[in-house]
């Protein structure tokens, strides 16, 4: 049976009699949006620094020598797919599917996130082999200030997936955990958004103007 759309966050299924739980989840989710805004400023500044330092190569290797677009393409596919799988976890929550479905999609997302990180670290190692280390130039400092910062966020997201998966196993679908699933999904989509910025500005922009 379909539930009446009385919730602020319909994906949560907190139930019609849970007005206070509904309000609590609205407060927390809004707070998380505000946090993401603040985090976005961090990335915005790192993008700005990268753009101003794109020419500060100081005779060191530049984008053309260092960037491997095939690997970037693979990473993009993996990350976008992980956004889909985290969305499927949300749908499982919304349609009251069994709890293991949510945990399963979390697991798939985790595998994709980790594969992304492996490819990214391989890229960094390949760059280092060609002399592309952050100590070499301002341009490379800006690159290593921005792209690994995104990687660090993906790592944090992976830890979150593991912890929340365990908590779902232990406590079941409590109000609090359902709202955490929503926030984790928001965070994961945010990582995707930043990655789109990175391929556009860091990689394509770097290859065009660097």
């Amino acid at each position: 049976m379909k539930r009446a759309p009385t919730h602020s966050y319909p994906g949560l299924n907190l139930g019609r009699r849970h007005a206070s739980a509904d309000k609590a989840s609205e407060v927390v989710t809004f707070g998380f949006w505000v946090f993401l805004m603040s985090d976005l400023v961090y990335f915005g500044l790192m993008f700005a620094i990268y753009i101003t330092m794109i020419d500060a190569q100081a005779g060191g290797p530049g984008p053309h020598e260092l960037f491997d677009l095939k690997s970037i393409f693979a990473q993009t596919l993996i990350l976008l797919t992980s956004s889909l799988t985290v969305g499927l976890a949300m749908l499982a929550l919304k349609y009251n599917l069994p709890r293991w479905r949510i945990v399963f999609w979390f697991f798939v997302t985790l595998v994709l996130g980790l594969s992304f990180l492996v490819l990214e670290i391989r890229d960094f190692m390949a760059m280092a082999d060609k002399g592309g280390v952050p100590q070499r130039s301002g341009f490379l400092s800006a690159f290593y200030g921005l792209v690994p910062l995104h990687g660090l966020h993906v790592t944090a997201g992976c830890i979150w997936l593991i912890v929340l998966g365990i908590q779902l196993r232990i406590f079941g679908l409590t109000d609090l955990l359902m709202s955490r699933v929503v926030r984790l999904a928001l965070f994961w989509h945010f990582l995707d958004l930043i990655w789109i910025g990175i391929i556009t500005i860091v990689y394509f922009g770097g290859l065009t103007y660097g």
Partner: protein
Amino acid sequence: MTTNGSGFFGRLNWDAFPITGLIQNPNTNEIVANTAAAIVIVGVIVVVGSLTWFRLWGPLWRDWLTSADHKKIGIMYIVFAIVMLARGVLEGVVMRAQQAAGPGDGFLEAEHFAELFSTHGTIMIFFVAVPFVFGLANFLIPLMIGARDVAFPVMNQISLGLTVSAGMMLMVSLVVGEFSTGGWTAYPPYTGAAFNPGVGPDYWIWAIVVSGVGTTLTGINFAVTIYKLRAPGMKFMRLPMYCWTIICSSILIVFAMPPLGVAALMLAADRYLDFHFFTNDLGGNMMNYANMFWLFGHPEVYLLVLPAYGIYSEVFATFSAKRLYGYNSLVIATMSIAVLSFTVWLHHFFTMGQSALINAVFGIATMLIAIPTGVKVYDWMATLFRGRIRFSVPMLYGLSFLMLFVIGGLSGVILANPTVDYQVHNTLFLVAHFHNVLLPGVLFGLLAGYNYWFPKAFGFRLNEFWGRVSVALWTVGFMLTFLPLYFVGLMGMPRRSFSWEDPSFHPYMIVAVVGALIILAALLSVIVQLWVSIRDREKARVPVGDPWDAHTLEWSIPAPPPSYNFAIIPHVTDRDDFAAAKERGNAYPSPDAYEDISVPLNTGIGFSLCVLSGVWMFALVWLIWWLAALVTIFMLATFIAWTFKAETERVIPAEEVRKQHEAWLDLVHNSTPVDRDHETAPENRGLARPDLEAVT
């Protein structure tokens, strides 16, 4: 990489302790440094000793350190701010004394003087003004909007923990090693590894990063609290003016703290990992630092001064017994200032090589801020006009502010002109200007708020006589210390100079040091006032909770408020809802029914993270890598373990709420209302008889 640390304790060794310097080379400079270190150590011993002697560890832990009650967190913030204020003022006095010591080198070494102005600035901005502002906000915001707590009580506790541990790093730097000599702005490349390989800039970086995280979390918390937790009927245009200023401050924090974090972390990457963001070689560009620092730094001054404007708005309205004049225009002015504050950062470095056109654009944007600020000043004056004015302590601070702040604001407009700025930048004129806005603007506002809301927090009024002494000393002390600096600044005396030669500066320097001593006396008078007030508290009790015949919701509940704030969540129908209710004669209604109330449970996570982040910063400063790694894992584990906690709230049964509330209502009905002529008399028990012209 900075100086290499390979041993078990990184680069920490006996040379890091100032006593070593004193033994090797006894002179005035070393004596001053050792005295400062000794004050810190003696202070810690006295605090620990008296807590043990009076057996207060248990109550301190149960009632304060683990409490997630916004009111207690607010009070702890303010205690911390006042301790740090004492250090900041003492440093100011030592600096004034050094410059007053006459033409020549004074009694301090250049390095030591540079440490003093760096810590003075860092402390006063990050560890006095910010915690004081948000301490008051913590205490007040839920009470003013009719809520039972902030949106994220535990995160609030963590913010406090991080702010305090970062402040403690500045205390530690007095005893172990030295602080940065790069000013509170810490411009590279001077603070980079090439010119400054020591621990000083590292202390600055980590204190800034950690307190910055704490402040960002606070900003998020208060933005969400005001957006989402207002009582029913409390529409935006019914919010007290103070809440508006805190929304604006919170928005400024959310957007302006990240640039500071980014700048400091990039400086850390340069220093620790040999990156080239701001170095002189290999493509580094220090202008990126200057831009990011001030992209934070300018909104920062408004996030401090706007809440002070909010406090003055409440104070002027209450002590004039009038509705705040021009509420709508004040809201618009506050928002305009918040937005404009992001458009002017470049005026902090007009002389650093932009084109004349860019300087002109930023100069004009800067001057525009004078318009909304002017609107505010006129609104406040119009609030006073034909009011039933009482010259209470907060009001006196407010009047002192009105006159002095206009001078500070006007000198700001002068500096906003790039051509003038070229002449006076980096002189004491600038120092005079920003002290002229920060003391009368921020500090007087905070002290006014402290005097105004103290009875709400503790249930008794502060001593009026010592309050007045304090206002007089702060005002005179401020004028003698800083107004002469305008003149020496125009005469060309550079800021931050430990030594000078031109004898014509001397008289001004003497006046300034006398002023600094008066400011020291002002600080002491604040402490005396507190001591006298606690001694005589029985004569100043205001249990009913409304000693000033005020307008806003926080005065409609007992003083001190119960842990759940409101027994019954109020339904707001008016802007000055409590004043309107008093006028209608139903300010203290008896509710028909009571409900169970959930309040946050005590938790030790804020305190744990405070200690852990302190160790973490210390390990990073001294390059003790194993410890830094260990503590990082500990912090993550603590946080993750906390997320497994299912119970975060405890319930206060309706019956208990009813008992407490009815006892208080009995007290209200049995108290004699006092009029405004007896506001400061012992018979003022906190029940007001509204008199003279109605507020609405």
